């Protein structure tokens, strides 16, 4: 104790001066820090960028340490301590500065990434990845500076890091392209979870999830398709957009196949044609005014019916043939009215022209009908997009059934598509538009395209 008192009394100046310098420097630096923070706050208040607050918050605490460290270094410089100890203590303070600075930077990176994430939630994976990479870089640089401060060799650490990076690159060489592709896809932001996409190789469905390596597609048949990200960046993708309104009841597509049934009834002249037609069941009238629609699927559309064709080719009467051909079934609410019109035209023509021509033997008009077998398909639609995609794939027999046969032969009065879009989807405007299409002026393929076009327009 006596020694200590003696040492202090002998060297009081060497002790008191550094303490005074430390105190004065600390007070000054803390005052300057406060002023700086106040100025910064004023500037921040003028700007709405939330990153400013992060910046102040991140610097507030470490800056106290930095004031202490600078004050201590000034005091150290004024002290009479030996150079050796001065160096060691200075390195210690410098190390503390490096550590606090590194933590400050990490806090800033974390804060900034949180802000960016709020604005770009869809790029969560990319933002987190970039944040982690920056943090690793900052910590690594901090460690290197610390080691360098204490004159510890960094060569081995550098080599180790390079070796680890090479090993990682080799292990993840297959995954890496997908990760890079994922960054590309996320950065481009061309699609998101919930979108319905179609890839040029044929896969299509709703995006159920996205990841570093692949995305998951949910198909209309409820299957899951996993597609690697790097395949997506190399493909043409059609993005149909978000989920659509679901129908109260799904539309189930049916297919229709038919077998022609002969009735044994035949007509040789116009009078016989009119007489049989007048009492013919609706199925027979329906057949002769509709079956040509299925027959002409690889030719051009032409308004026609069997009666017109027969009058032209077997009786050689092209005037009446034209009159009969111009009758569009679309203009009639049902088969009964259509039959009445056909019979009316034929009878009127007989009365005014006295046409008694007879067809050559074997070229009579043979009345026929069909036996239709309705078969359920696997295509089911819950919304307009699923409906459009199914519409692209169903057979022409299926399209024919839902547009023509269901409306007229089953006597529903409207085609099935119109009914579903109106009743189960509540899309009255679109339903009305489809109901107004005259399907007799299209080939079945043309009708399919027209329907798809109208529905796609509505989706957009």
């Amino acid at each position: 104790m006596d020694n200590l008192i003696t040492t202090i009394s002998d060297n009081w100046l060497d002790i008191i001066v550094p303490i005074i310098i430390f105190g004065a420097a600390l007070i000054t630096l803390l005052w300057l820090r406060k002023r700086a923070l106040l100025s910064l706050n004023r500037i921040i208040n003028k700007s709405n960028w939330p990153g400013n607050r992060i910046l102040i918050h991140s610097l507030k605490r470490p800056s106290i340490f930095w004031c202490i460290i600078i004050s201590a270094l000034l005091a150290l410089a004024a002290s009479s301590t030996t150079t050796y100890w001065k160096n060691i203590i200075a390195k210690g303070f410098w190390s503390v500065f490096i550590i606090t600075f590194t933590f400050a930077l990490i806090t800033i990176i974390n804060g900034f990434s949180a802000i960016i994430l709020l604005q770009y939630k869809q790029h969560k994976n990319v933002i987190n990845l970039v944040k982690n990479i920056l943090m690793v870089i900052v910590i690594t640089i901090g460690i290197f500076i610390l080691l360098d401060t204490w004159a510890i060799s960094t060569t081995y650490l550098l080599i180790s890091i390079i070796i680890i990076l090479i090993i990682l690159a080799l292990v993840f060489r297959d995954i890496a392209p997908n990760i890079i592709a994922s960054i590309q896809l996320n950065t481009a932001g061309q699609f998101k979870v919930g979108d319905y996409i179609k890839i040029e190789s044929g896969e299509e469905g709703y995006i159920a999830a996205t990841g570093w390596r692949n995305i998951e597609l949910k198909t209309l048949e409820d299957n899951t398709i996993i597609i690697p990200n790097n395949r997506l960046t190399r493909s043409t993708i059609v993005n149909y957009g978000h989920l659509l309104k679901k129908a109260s009841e799904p539309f189930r597509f049916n297919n229709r196949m038919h077998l022609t049934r002969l009735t044994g009834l035949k007509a040789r002249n116009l009078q016989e044609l009119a007489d049989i037609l007048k009492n013919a069941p609706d199925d027979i009238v329906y057949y002769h005014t509709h079956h040509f629609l299925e027959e002409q699927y690889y030719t051009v559309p032409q308004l026609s019916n069997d009666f017109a064709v027969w009058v032209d080719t077997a009786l050689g009467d092209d005037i009446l043939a034209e009159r009969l051909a111009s009758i569009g079934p679309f203009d009639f609410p049902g088969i009964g009215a259509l039959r009445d019109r056909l019979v009316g035209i034929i009878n009127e023509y007989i009365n005014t022209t006295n046409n008694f021509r007879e067809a050559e033997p074997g070229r009579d008009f043979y009345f026929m009908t069909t036996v239709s077998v309705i078969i359920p398909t696997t295509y089911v639609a819950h919304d307009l997009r699923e409906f459009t995609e199914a519409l692209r794939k169903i057979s022409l027999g299926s399209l024919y059934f839902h547009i023509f046969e269901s409306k007229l032969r089953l006597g529903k009065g409207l085609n099935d598509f119109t009914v579903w879009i109106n009743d189960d989807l509540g899309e009255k405007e679109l339903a009305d538009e489809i109901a107004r299409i005259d399907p007799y002026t299209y080939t079945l393929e043309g009708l399919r395209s027209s329907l798809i076009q109208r529905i796609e327009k509505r989706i957009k």
Partner: protein
Amino acid sequence: MSRMIPLLKELGVDARWNIIQGNNEFFQVTKKFHNALHGRTEKITKNDFNCFQETSQKNIDEMELDGDIIFIHDPQPLALINRKEKVGGKWIWRCHIDISRPNPAVWNFLEPYVNQYDAAIFSAPAFSRQLPLRQFLISPSIDPLSDKNKELPQQTIDAVLEKYGISRDKPIITQVSRFDYLKDPVGVIQAFEIVRNHIDCQLVFAGGTATDDPESDKVLAEVRERANNNPDIHILLIPPGSDIEINALQRASTIIVQKSLSEGFGLTVSEALWKAKPVVASAVGGITLQIRDKFTGLLTYGIEGTAYDLRQLLTNPEYANWLGKNGKEYVRHRFLITRHIRDYMLLFLALEHPQDDIFYL
């Protein structure tokens, strides 16, 4: 049938094919019936009916018959329906000929048999008549992969032409059909002779003789006599099973003609159309289902008309090619075996719903 049965088996239908037995006299009678049902005048005696009934009874007694659905093809085995009660199942009569204007005596004899069937199938609407049973229209078909219709290398075609001494240097007009009066072979020669007066060309008449057609030898002799050793007329008696040769002759042809006076369906027309050949054919029977006049071929009504159309096509090869191309597409959609199989499957379903013209599965 040899092409249909394996395909039906592939689809899970245990299909089998049986043939009735009969002597020469029986087939003489059935040939007369065949002609009479087509509307030709035939002298049918009581003995003929007895012969038909006796042979039919023998087949009824001896033939192995069982199944859920029994198809009876043509009028010859029609009387097998008498086994219906014992065998059970649904019975279908597959009628390949035109019975719209039959000889009344023959029809009155056969009608009671026909009326016992559950359904009848015809190849063309014009063949049917009012019957108290359901009638369906099912066209016959060709198998595009069979020897008769598959693609052939040029060497095979050349070899067949060489074998029969047919020149490649002149247009070839071909009719492929049995030697049968109903195919009007003499009319074909007459039409050819008219064409030959204007255009240097040759005629190939290729056909065989059917075991159930005793008349064919007589017809062949008449045709040869009418050809009168004309070096441009090739009358070829092709042995049974020579499908590749028939195929080669059709493919080597410039035009294919089918000048039938009466016709069932006329599958040779489908075969020709499938080979994208321009076809000139009579507007009879099932030919009118295959040829849409001036779109998939040309329909004719007589010798002069046939000759005129042949000349038109020989002098307008672009038009001929266009017809051929359309014809091939027409057959692709309507007369291939796949459509035929589908129709049979639909028929099986229709038999399960005898009262319904529209039903859900």
